[in-house]
Every structure is written in C-alpha cells, then in structure tokens.
C-alpha cells in the first residue's frame, strides 16, 4: 500500500467518510466545470480555415459588408439536406454569421418542410421541380431579404464547374451571398420603362392579356416599373431616367424621333427588352416595319418581316397550323434554369405565339441566339396571301428556312469613361406573349414567365457590387484507369490487411514458441527440483 493511500485511512484502517465525499465532490465539480467550459465555448467560438484556397476565410468585401450591417437581413436557404451544395452553403453562412448579429439564417428543406416551402414558393414566385432521385430542386437556392427587398441566388450562381478544367470546381458562394446582401441594402432601385402609344400591352392591365402580373413580379424583384408615352412627350426626356426600356408587342411603328431617342439612350448605356411580334396592316394587307430596325441594328440584330410557322410535330402544339410552337433554348444567362439539366428537372418549356424571325446583321456586335425554331420551321414572307387562301402553310422559295432565331441577346462594348462594368444590353424576341399575365397563371406557361424574368434580370443588371474572386478547389475527379483500380484493390484490400495479418501470425507463433520454451524450462526446472528434493529426502533419511 502506498503512502498516499495510507494517509486516507484512519487508525482503525477504515477510509474516512470525508475522503469519499471529497472524492465524489471532486468528480461532480469536474463534470460541472467540463459542462461550463463547453457552454462558454459554444457561445464564444472561433473557426480556423485550414484549406489552401482559404475557402472559408471571408474577404474584406464580405467582412466590411456584414460587419457594417445597419438593418436586419434574412437569408432563407431552400436547399434539400441531400443537396451537394447544402454543406458548403451552411458552412459559409455559419462563418458569416459569426461576424454579425444582423443576419438571420433559416434553412427550409423542401423535402422535410413542404408546407413551409410552398408558402415561400408562393410568396416569392419560385419555380420548383423534382430531380431523378426525388429531391426538390428550385430555381432559387437562396433568398436574401431585407425590408421590402429580396434577392434570388440560384445554384448556378453558387458554383462554377468545368469538365474541361479537369473537373475543377470554382466556389462563388461568398461572391453570390455577399452580392445578395448588398443588393437588398438600400441603394437605388432600377427603373424599368414600358413604352406606350403604339398599341403595346398595358402595364395596368392585370388580365391574362396584360402586363400587370409582369409589373408585380418586377416590383417584387426590387425594380420600379412605369409606363412612358414616347408619342406625346419628348421621347428623349421621357427616357432620361430609365435604366431599361421594354417595348412589349407594339401594333404600330415607332417614329424616327422615337427611334433616335432610343438609340441615343442606348448608346449612353440604357438597356432594352423588345418583344416585337409581326405587325400587319390589315387594309393594305402587308407586314409593317416596327420603326425600331435602326435601334436593333446597333446591336447587330435584324428584324425579318415574316411570320414563323413551325412544321416539326415535336416542336409545335397539335392544334393550329404551327403558329404556336416550342422554340428550343440556347445556353445563355437569360436561359438559366431552362436549359440542360434544369429543363429535364422542371419540365418547363417556352411557348411562342405568332412570331417573326430575327437575323444577325453587320460585322460589329455579335448577338447570341437564345431562342430558335427547328430546322423544319420557316418564316413566311407573304402572310396575307396564305391567310386568304387558307390550308396548311407550306414554304415557298422566298420564305426563310429554319432553324430560325426568334430570340437574340446582345451587349455593346462598354464606353471607356463609363463607371458601368458592361455596356448596354438588348434582348429582342420575335414574339410578345412571353410577358403576358397568363404566363404567371397557367402552369403550362411557367417557362415563359421564367424566361421573361431571367431576361429582365440580365437586361437590367446593375454592375456587380462585389468583386470576390472565385475560389478554386482541388479537382474532385480521380484519373483512374481500370488497371490502376485493380492495383488499388490489391493494395488496399489485399496487401495492407494481409501484411497486418502476417505480422499478427508471426507475433502469435513467436509468442507460442516462447511460451512452449518457458513451459519446457519450467518442467525441466520442476523435474530438477524433484531430483533435488529426492536427494534431500535421502540425506534426511
């Protein structure tokens, strides 16, 4: 017995009660201290970023943004817990949250909380679909909101993935979230002007054939939408305060003065969204120019005086003669969420009704096609001749043959002294039905609504407010051939456990032989001692 333990005993050898009590109290105190230390550490914690790319280290732009918040900002994450981006978003928001008390984060898993998700879906007009594995996928992955403003961040905004770059992923999480926070903080609202006086669809018409629904969506997205009549007042003055102009389905032509005023403003940086369906003079039975040809030509876009018929059965609705059809979409910022995987997930399609075709003209700006017909479509030049005759439309030698562009997007070079990060942008569609109220009411037309929203976001985009470089992470792909995979199997499942097994067997055998030897030695020793004792007995005898 050690000295220490002896000290705990009383004279009669019994441990004192007080020693036991002190010991028990010590254990309880240690438990309490451990609990307190954990509670304090949970409230005041630090996170260290060990990644080489400093994935979780906030940039100065983010830190200054979140630390300087003067109003509360709500971040709603609409990602399913099984979404590959969920963990990354959660981590980053945790780091951001540790720098401000003004930011509240809510995770609404569409799979776990469908009712809550539907409420948000309706409040913010979010489109959702299901992926192959059953997950709910939305066009808005994160909503940043503050007071009456909100900002959508899509999955595409969060990460860049390049197969050609060896499967390398570039994180844009911080850039997107900080951009979203800054977007909802104060500042000027973009002003969108809708022209009137040429028979355009009305902004005040809330029916399915008006722009009321579109106006509501724009206002929800932090834009100011208003009507300007360029025929009555000085068009240059009317356009002065506009950040972007929308021409929605005119039925009469614009005057030269109006056209010049538009061109001057667009040269100065104003962007535009023109929905120019064919215009007919029913008396003269001819197709009229829009008067905006010189404006669109500035962006390399030509307006064909034709009427598009889609003859491909897969790309048109069964009824009618092909004037209502499903144009295909090309990858562009305006078609995000509608092309590739997104389209397969949501099943949304764009429906075009009564369209003209568009051209790429000039050698300057090269517009990008965003909507086009099938190869079997054609643009009828003499619509009235066919209308009088009736029957199935058939292309003649004068008609334009598909595939025809019915949506083009272009961007002017930025002026050298401009503070903007990009020049004026213009999207021209050969059809006007994309912005009508029915698109937000009929689920079958939600593709149109989504495209119209995307176009407006691209056209009226304010200059990026944060400049945080994308963070490059190690490539997630492994360059492994079938042969090297077999080699890996041999190493990790055969050689490494096998080596441990062999060492174990060797240790066992060595120990056994040592035990045998010691047993043998003890027996020998035992027999020797037996001999010794016999001789001793003999001696005693």
């Amino acid at each position, binding site marked *: 017995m050690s000295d220490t333990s002896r000290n705990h005993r009383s004279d009669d050898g019994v441990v004192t009660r007080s020693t036991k009590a002190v*010991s028990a109290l010590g254990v309880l105190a240690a438990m309490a201290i*451990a609990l307190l230390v954990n509670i304090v550490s949970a409230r005041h914690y630090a996170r260290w970023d*060990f990644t080489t790319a400093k*994935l979780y280290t906030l940039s100065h732009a983010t830190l200054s943004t979140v630390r300087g918040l003067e109003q509360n900002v709500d971040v709603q994450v609409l990602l399913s817990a099984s979404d*590959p981006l969920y963990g990354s978003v959660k*981590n980053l928001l945790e780091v951001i949250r540790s720098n401000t008390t003004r930011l509240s984060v809510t995770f609404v898993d569409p799979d776990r909380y469908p009712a809550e998700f539907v409420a948000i879906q309706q409040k913010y007009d979010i489109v959702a679909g299901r992926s192959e594995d059953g997950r709910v996928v939305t066009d808005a992955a994160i909503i940043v909101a503050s007071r009456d403003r909100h900002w959508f961040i899509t999955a595409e905004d969060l990460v860049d993935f390049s197969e050609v770059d060896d499967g390398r992923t570039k994180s844009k999480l911080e850039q997107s979230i900080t951009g979203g926070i800054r977007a909802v903080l104060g500042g000027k609202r973009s002003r969108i002007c809708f022209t009137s006086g040429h028979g355009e669809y009305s902004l005040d018409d809330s029916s399915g054939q008006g722009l009321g629904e579109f106006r509501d969506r724009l206002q929800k997205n932090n834009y100011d939408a208003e009507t300007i009549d360029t025929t009555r007042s000085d068009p240059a003055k009317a356009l002065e305060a506009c950040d972007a102009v929308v021409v929605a389905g005119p039925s009469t032509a614009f005057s030269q003065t109006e056209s010049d005023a538009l061109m001057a403003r667009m040269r100065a940086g104003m962007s535009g969204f023109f929905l120019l369906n064919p215009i007919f003079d029913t008396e003269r039975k001819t197709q009229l120019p829009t008067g905006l040809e010189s404006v669109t030509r500035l962006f390399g876009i030509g307006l064909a005086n034709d009427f598009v018929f889609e003859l491909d059965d897969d790309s048109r609705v069964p009824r009618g003669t092909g004037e209502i059809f499903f144009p295909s979409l090309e990858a562009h910022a305006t078609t995000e969420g509608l092309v590739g995987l997104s389209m397969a997930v949501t099943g949304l399609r764009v429906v075009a009704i009564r369209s003209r075709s568009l051209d790429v003209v000039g050698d300057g700006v090269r517009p990008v096609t965003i909507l086009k017909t099938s190869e079997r479509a054609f643009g009828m030049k003499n619509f009235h001749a066919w209308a009088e005759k009736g029957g199935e439309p058939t292309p003649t030698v004068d008609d334009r043959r598909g595939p025809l562009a019915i949506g083009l997007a272009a961007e002017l070079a930025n002026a050298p002294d401009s503070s903007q990060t990009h020049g004026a942008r213009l999207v021209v569609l050969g059809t006007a039905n994309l912005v009508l109220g029915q698109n937000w009411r009929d689920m079958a037309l939600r593709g149109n609504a989504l495209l119209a929203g995307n176009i407006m976001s691209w056209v009226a985009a304010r200059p990026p407010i944060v400049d945080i470089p994308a963070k490059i992470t190690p*490539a997630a792909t492994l360059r492994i051939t079938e042969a090297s995979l077999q080699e890996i199997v041999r190493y990790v*499942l055969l050689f490494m456990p096998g080596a441990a097994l062999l060492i174990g067997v060797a240790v066992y055998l060595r120990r056994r032989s040592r035990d045998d030897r010691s047993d043998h030695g003890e027996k020998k020793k035992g027999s020797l001692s037996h001999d010794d004792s016999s001789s001793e007995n003999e001696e005693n005898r």
Partner: protein
Amino acid sequence: MTGFWPIFKRDLFALFVTPMAWALMVIFLLLEGLNFYWLTVHFANQVDLAVDHGPLQWFFGETVLFYLPLLMLPPALTMRSFAEERRAGTIESLLTAPVSTPGIVLAKWCASFVTYLVAWAPTVLYIVILRRAGEVDWRVVASSYLGVILIGASFLAIGVLMSAMSKSQFVAVLLSLAVTVGLFILGIGEFVFDRGLAHDICSHVSIWSQMADFSKGQIDSRYVVFHLSLIVLPLFICVRVVDSWRWG
C-alpha cells in the same frame, strides 16, 4: 506521474504481442480499404458539384465504413486496460507498487492511444494513392487527421474509464460502446430536431458534423474544447476510481 514510462511500455508491448491487436488491425484495414475503394470508384466515374465535397471528405466521414472503426476500435483497444488486470489479479501488485494513480491511468490511456495511431497510420498510404490519381490539399488532410485523433483520444479515455468500472473485458467493451455509440446517435439528433436547445446540444456533440468540418479543413474551437473535455473528464474520474481501490 511516477511510474508512467514502465507501465506505458508494458501496456504498449502487451497490446502488440497479443494476436487480438493484429486481428483488430486487419479488420480495421479491411473496412477502411473498402471505404477507400468505393470512393475511388465513385470519384473515377462522377464528380459532385459541391465545392468542398471531394474524395477526402468522403473518406473522412461520409460513409458508415469510416464511423464503424472509429466507434469500435477504441473500446476494443481499452477493454483490457483495467478489467484484465483486475480479472488476473495483477492490479493488486500494480496498486502496491510505488506508482502514482494518474501515472497508471495516463500510461494505460497513452498506450492505447499510440496503438490507435498505429492503426490509422497505414491510411496515409490511401492519401498518397489519392494524390497520384488526383489532387489533395495536404492542409485539409492534416485537419482531417486531427479530427480522427481528437475523436479517438476522447473515445479511448471513455474506454479506459469503462474498463476501470468493470471487472470483465466484455462488460467494459459493452459499456464503452454504449457511451460512444450513444454519443454518435445523440449527434444525429441534429438532423432530427428543429432549431432549439435540443438541436444545439445534438449539433455540439455530433461526431458526424465534427468530421464533416474537420474533413473540409475547418477547425472549430467548440469541437476541440468538447473533445479535450471528453479526454480530461473520463481520465480524471478514472483516477478517482483507481484511487478508491487503493483505499479499499
């Protein structure tokens, strides 16, 4: 800390000369090898869009094959610490030897900890293979192993305490498993409970979340403090338990 080295060396030697340690090593390497093989097949065929979800994150905490050894190995390594000594009756000679109780407890914990590290050491070869087939951020590897070490060290401390509290190795391993697996299951509550106290408690102890952070190169002071307290507290209680034997 009197008598630490002799007991540490004796226990370490005892662990490695028994076939059981090697049998555990074989099972451990088979499970981790299988885990590694699956991840190579997965990432050779496809990639995830997440910016911080690669082969390393998969290996360190995405599959049950990682957690199985993490939960099973410490109880198996520590079950003999005191229970076997008590069963064989050698504890009496240890207690009467001129060694301090903290020395005995720490020596036994350190011996099992070194064995635990030796078991994990071959897995560095997996990372070397990954480096040859793709890209590896070695700083993230370091933080991942820090997670493995911290979790292992705390589970070993629990295992040593449980071994001291029972006379049978079998009971010791069962008690250790009950605590470590219980802790793991409690952590899963993070995904069950909505935001609130229960959620916060579960996420604080969640081994899953902790490894998810460590494997992404993030070291959180909360997790470090949690595991340090989970090492110190059981070892302190263990010292008091062993002391109580001395008092009789």
